[in-house]
């Protein structure tokens, strides 16, 4: 018999011709839209040979840009992480008026164009802005210097850690923390020995994504940095500068560092998702589950 030994009848979309056509369509587009840009970075970076690539990376301005990017991340990521943990703790383990509003405000930077963020910072710390003159009088330099770059980076990545932790900690409830407190543990003790072990993968996931975005941020930083070569150029800005200097190979060499970082980020992300962090924990995913399988199977 034709079907014998074949298990189930075909599901919707399992017709071999359709399947092959759709798979081909998708894989070709993935190749063109996602893989090709990645490959072209590598190819262009080495288009003038390995020596040129090495020289481009070793160039003092490139090295300075790398340093500045790393320093920015070293400041912005830990601060952001502390904020994300504090926000998640306050929002998921306590009730207070305005909680919903606070949750929405934390998410705002995710929806705002980085350019708008940069422009907005200009109107706080720039000479045209709220504190510009006061800062100038005190000789504090925020814009076109490291503090501005760090602040703008913190704005665009503000939601990253919190949005990983909030849904997870919401789902975990307060029972464990309440049990620990009832056994006499202090707040810090409760956090470090009860809460943290349960959220460590999600926390790390948020930190990794936050770091990736901080190191790669372009729009907001390009407004507030002033683009001073060898001084306030982060790596993404330096890439733009080299590119517009018609030094494509140098630009792509610098870009390949960030592309490498992106690949590392993806690998770590997949590893963390295997530990249960990430999108499967998000409410949208959970809601999706509820949408179609309302009954809990035993």
């Amino acid at each position: 018999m034709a079907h014998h030994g074949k298990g189930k009848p075909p599901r919707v979309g399992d017709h071999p011709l359709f399947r092959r056509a759709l798979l081909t369509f998708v894989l070709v587009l993935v190749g063109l839209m996602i893989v090709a840009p990645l490959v072209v970075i590598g190819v262009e970076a080495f288009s003038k040979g390995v020596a040129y690539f090495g020289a481009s990376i070793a160039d003092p301005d490139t090295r300075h840009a790398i340093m500045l990017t790393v320093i920015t991340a070293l400041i912005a990521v830990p601060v952001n992480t502390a904020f994300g943990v504090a926000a998640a703790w306050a929002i998921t383990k306590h009730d207070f008026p305005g909680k919903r509003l606070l949750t929405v405000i934390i998410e705002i930077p995710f929806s705002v164009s980085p350019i708008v963020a940069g422009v907005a910072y200009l109107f706080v710390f720039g000479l045209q802005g709220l504190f510009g003159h006061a800062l100038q009088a005190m000789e504090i330099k925020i814009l076109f210097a490291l503090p501005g770059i760090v602040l703008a980076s913190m704005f665009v990545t503000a939601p990253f850690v919190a949005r990983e932790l909030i849904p997870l900690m919401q789902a975990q409830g307060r029972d464990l923390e309440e049990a620990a407190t009832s056994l006499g543990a202090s707040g810090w003790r409760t956090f470090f020995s009860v809460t943290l072990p349960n959220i460590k993968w999600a926390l790390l996931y948020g930190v990794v994504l936050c770091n990736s975005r901080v190191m790669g941020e372009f729009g907001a930083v390009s407004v507030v940095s002033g683009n001073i070569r060898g001084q306030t150029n982060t790596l993404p800005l330096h890439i733009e500068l080299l590119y517009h200097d018609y030094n494509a190979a140098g630009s792509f060499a610098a870009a390949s560092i960030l592309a490498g970082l992106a690949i590392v980020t993806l690998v770590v992300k997949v590893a963390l998702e295997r530990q249960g962090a990430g999108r499967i924990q998000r409410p949208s995913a959970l809601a999706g589950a509820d949408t179609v399988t309302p009954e809990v199977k035993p």
Partner: protein
Amino acid sequence: MKIRLDNVVKEFETFRAVHGVSLDIDSGELVALLGPSGSGKTTILRMVAGLEYADAGAIYFGDENATDIPVRERGVGFVFQHYALFPHMTVGENIAFGMKVSKIKRSPQAIAARVKELLDLVQLSGLKDRFPGQISGGQRQRVALARALAVDPRVLLLDEPFGALDANVRRDLRRWLRKIHDELGITTLFVTHDQEEALDLADRVVILNKGKIVQEGTPETVCRSPADAFVMNFLGDANRLEAEIRGGKAHVDGIAFEADGIADGSGQILFRPADVTWREDGQGIAASIVRVIDRPDSRRVLAMTRSGQAVEFDTAPEFPHRRGDAGFLDIRRPRVYAAA
């Protein structure tokens, strides 16, 4: 429509497999496939529906070999365990779905009339415009039945139809399903792991274990003459005593029971808790009472035989004995089987 399964086989890696099942279902019969989880009962139902292909064997609908007829042309009505109602369609749209996608073109008026008729049949006339999320579990179950019946199926198949419902709703719906079946006379096969449900509802019960039929027959047959210890245990509470079989007799603690046709060796005696009488003296297996549990209409007594085997039995609420009292277990209707 008669259904015949001829030595149907379905191999899975571990679980739910079916190892050569043959079964005849008469036209208009209501048959239960009863078994524990993993016994293959749902797999059989899904093969009859065409939702699963058999690895070997054949399935006949009447005289037609239906083994390779695709599910959508097989003309079965299937009620899924969790109903699988389309959550974005109203109750009315759910019931109309099969008629709308059918190759037989019906006018909207004809479809509406049929939907109304089915809603009346399942007593949900007022709920046509509700969504599945807005009605109770029992109501969803009836919508699922109406939806399955709308396409005038040759066979009605139900997978654990009452599994997701509360006990009291379950009993009402059971009686009601029997009534609908008697009105429509459609050949019906349903799967359950609940022996009470199977016995209450079915003309005939097919008991499955590990992918094989262990017994089939009317509720009376399977209750009164369970084919083996598995059936005896599965159908209800049973006590089990180790016995030794010698020359057509089963011996337990010096008492002998009829064991015609069972080979010598170790054996077992099974009996229902209701089939024990406690005697202060006389015939029976010597035992002492371990505990007395009170129930609304009876007392359940836990006793221990002299050889250390536990027995439970039911008595009248007035049962006067207490923990520690010694006496004898007089067993009616013992069933003797060779050891498993």
